[in-house]
């Protein structure tokens, strides 16, 4: 037999096995170190930055992006992309708003005020439906993911605008006499001092992390994203995996929509515009490969916090919001550059 390990031609092996030099460690934990650096720098610049209350407020902002990014991560792991999350977020928010305002059934002459739990369930179901639509078009009809989700992005946004005529549903608090109060719980309440939205994010992250690392579905997902053909021939139900990830992404967008409209106590059709790009950025900063098959929830969470803590930090020290955009862009480019270095030439060739 040959001794592949001895001849050194297969250098990635040596690198992977490799001695953990400080540079490699820095490269591997780059999202983590970036987050630490951001926190240190802004703590120096503003005494209010690293206080418990500010960190919790910033985290509740991160929650929206974070939830979307989890959905984006599973889609990107499968080798796809989901551009429709921002629009699904808005449409779901608007639907939730409409349901809170009451559904008028004209022929019966009644107005239904569904309880909050029903609103949440219906909204998530809508998100799932839109996600499944993406998934079915991509998996069964082989429409490229980019195009499919671009189309659904426009359609969902358009429907949200049509429904509201461009206006915003305000006052989602509900009325005690109708029994539909409690919608602001998601956005405003705290449990043990922590905003509910952050707890929701944490719970979703833990669940998704377990799914990816320990369930057979997780393994299917990594395999389909890494090499769809090989996964298919190994008996992995590749199509089912694809439909499932887009459905999950749709549900998570709906949850993010609920959290956002609860935080704002209003639901507008233009909410979440360009959030899909922020979510992609979080996933990429977290070290996932856009070609699929590589990435973790931990990385994606770090990516979401890097973006959130950076832009909020810039606001706190009074930097113009235009500069925030520039900084965020620079961080994304830097992150992709690092990914390229880490995954080496193999990543590029694909």
């Amino acid at each position, binding site marked *: 037999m040959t001794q592949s390990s001895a001849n*050194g031609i297969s250098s990635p092996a040596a690198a992977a096995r490799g001695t953990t030099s400080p540079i490699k460690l820095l490269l591997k934990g780059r999202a983590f170190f970036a987050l630490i650096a951001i926190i240190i720098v802004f703590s120096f610049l503003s005494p209010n930055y690293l206080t418990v209350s500010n960190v919790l407020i910033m985290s509740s902002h991160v929650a929206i992006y974070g939830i979307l990014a989890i959905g984006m991560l599973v889609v990107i792991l499968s080798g796809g992309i989901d551009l429709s999350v921002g629009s699904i977020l808005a449409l779901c928010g608007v639907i939730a708003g409409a349901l809170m305002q009451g559904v008028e059934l004209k022929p019966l002459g009644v107005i239904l005020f569904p309880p909050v739990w029903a609103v949440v369930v219906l909204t998530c179901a809508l998100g799932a439906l839109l996600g499944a639509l993406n998934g079915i078009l991509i998996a069964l009809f082989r429409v490229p993911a980019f195009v499919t989700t671009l189309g659904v992005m426009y359609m969902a946004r358009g429907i949200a605008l049509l429904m509201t005529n461009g206006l915003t549903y305000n006052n989602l608090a509900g009325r005690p006499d109708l029994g539909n109060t409690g919608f602001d719980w998601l956005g405003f309440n705290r449990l043990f001092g922590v905003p509910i939205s952050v707890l929701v994010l944490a719970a979703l992250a833990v669940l998704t992390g377990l799914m990816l690392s320990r369930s057979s579905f997780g393994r299917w997902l990594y395999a389909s994203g890494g090499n769809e053909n*090989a996964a298919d021939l190994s008996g992995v139900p590749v199509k089912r995996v694809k439909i499932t990830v887009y459905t999950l992404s749709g549900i998570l967008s709906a949850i993010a929509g609920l959290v956002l409209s609860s935080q704002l106590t209003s639901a507008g059709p233009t909410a979440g515009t360009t959030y899909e790009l922020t979510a992609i950025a979080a996933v990429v900063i977290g070290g996932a*490969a856009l070609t699929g098959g590589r990435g973790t929830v931990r990385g994606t969470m770090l990516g979401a916090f890097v973006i959130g803590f950076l832009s909020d930090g810039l606001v706190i020290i009074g930097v113009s919001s235009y500069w925030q955009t520039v900084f965020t862009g620079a961080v994304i480019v830097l992150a992709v550059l690092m990914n390229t270095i880490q995954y080496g030439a193999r990543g590029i060739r694909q």
Partner: protein
Amino acid sequence: MSDAATSRPAGEVVLAARNIAKSYNGVKALKGVNFDIHRGQVTTLFGENGAGKSTLMKILSGVAQPTSGEIVLDGQPIVFSSSTDARNHGISIIHQELSLAPNLSVRDNIFMGREITGPTGVDYAEEERQVRRLLAELEEDIDPLTPVEELRLGQQQIVEIARALSVDSRILIMDEPTSALSATEVEVLFSVIRDLTAKGVSIVYISHHLEEALQITDHAVVLRDGNMTAYAPRADIDLEWIVRNMVGENYDLGSPPTGHDFGPIMLSVRDLTVPDPAGGGYNVVDRMSLDVRAGEIVCIYGLMGAGRTELLETVAGKLSATSGEIALEGKEISHLAIGERIARGLALVPEDRQRYGLVQTMSVGQNLSLASIREFTRGVFTSLRLERALIQKSIRNVTVKTDGPDVAIGSLSGGNQQKVVIGKMLATDPKVILLDEPSRGIDIGAKAEVFRILAHHAAAGQAVVFTTSEVNECLSIAHRIIIMRRGRISAEFTSDITKEKIMAASGEAVAA
């Protein structure tokens, strides 16, 4: 065919390697290699995977620079800064992994990066004329405007060769140029090589197909573990000499396992018809029937395009048939998905392990366990303990040489990667195992091990079906040899048949 070497006088030395050594991260890939490349002659590099052939080739073609030693071109020491630099000195390389743009036409690929330009941009008419001339020389009937992705692998290889020829190379390095070619295409290539050498072009040839290489070579350089173990002219060598120098001992691919009786029919294919998946409008498998018994090893031999791959892929569930029946242990399975067929005990090891066998982003262990995830899933979660046990068992079963289950799959040699793909499917505990060209692109030592594994599993009562383009492999371990030609069985033999009869039945010109 070996008269080529003896009849021609040795030309002058055009390129020489002097004490070439190369280290990667302190690991020595080449340790002092010395040989000459003569004008108008074929020099073949022999060696197993990882022996240093690719490194040596990279150095000769300017892709890599030697750590020590020098290359002497026409008597002058020279350093190539890049492959373009080497090409400007008349040295071209044809890579084993094709480097063609599948979306572009044959013409555009051949002139990629050095388009002929006129006053009105690219002179397509002139390019097309030159391509037609080149392809005519190669006796290949390909329209220059066909997109490369529509060509068969063998034709793509021809295009790659045409591209190297189009730059008027003095020295042409060919890395496994025949791995995707049928026997007739190989003959064409060899006649092209003879024409080229007659014109004074020197060829550096690399092949795992030893007999084939012996037909064409004038000099042999044998590498083992980075050392040059032998260098001799054709007249002084034979097959055994090469193998002995390559592996250090004599290797036998084995003989059909005996001492066990065949069991009941495990796989039964009836009147299977499969249309061309590329949409060619004809049937690649044409009303074919086949029975395989438990414990039996069946070899399917045929040229490229004979329908071997499509037959196996249809049985495994990747392609669908227009008519016919596939039964596993007497039960119809044509309606089942791939995963369900695997669960019933049918496994396919695909031909192209990079595209269809391995998930490159996963570790060795995760690749090995990929087809048996259900085996170690308890409820919702996978059991790490059960998975680890399954992986360890597979590594032992197919003797994968790895630094542990967690290393990247890309770090293994070709032979070991192939064993991982085989191990992955064997881990599903199949009753019938189909292997499409299991020996493609792996060295002779790994080949022998792969066949030993198959023989072992057949003796344990599994039914084994494998395809090959090498007659010797059919003759070595198969109990029954089936020749496929244009989607049908053209002949069926037992293992005591001769090579010539097999090749005649497959539609090949009988090689001398």
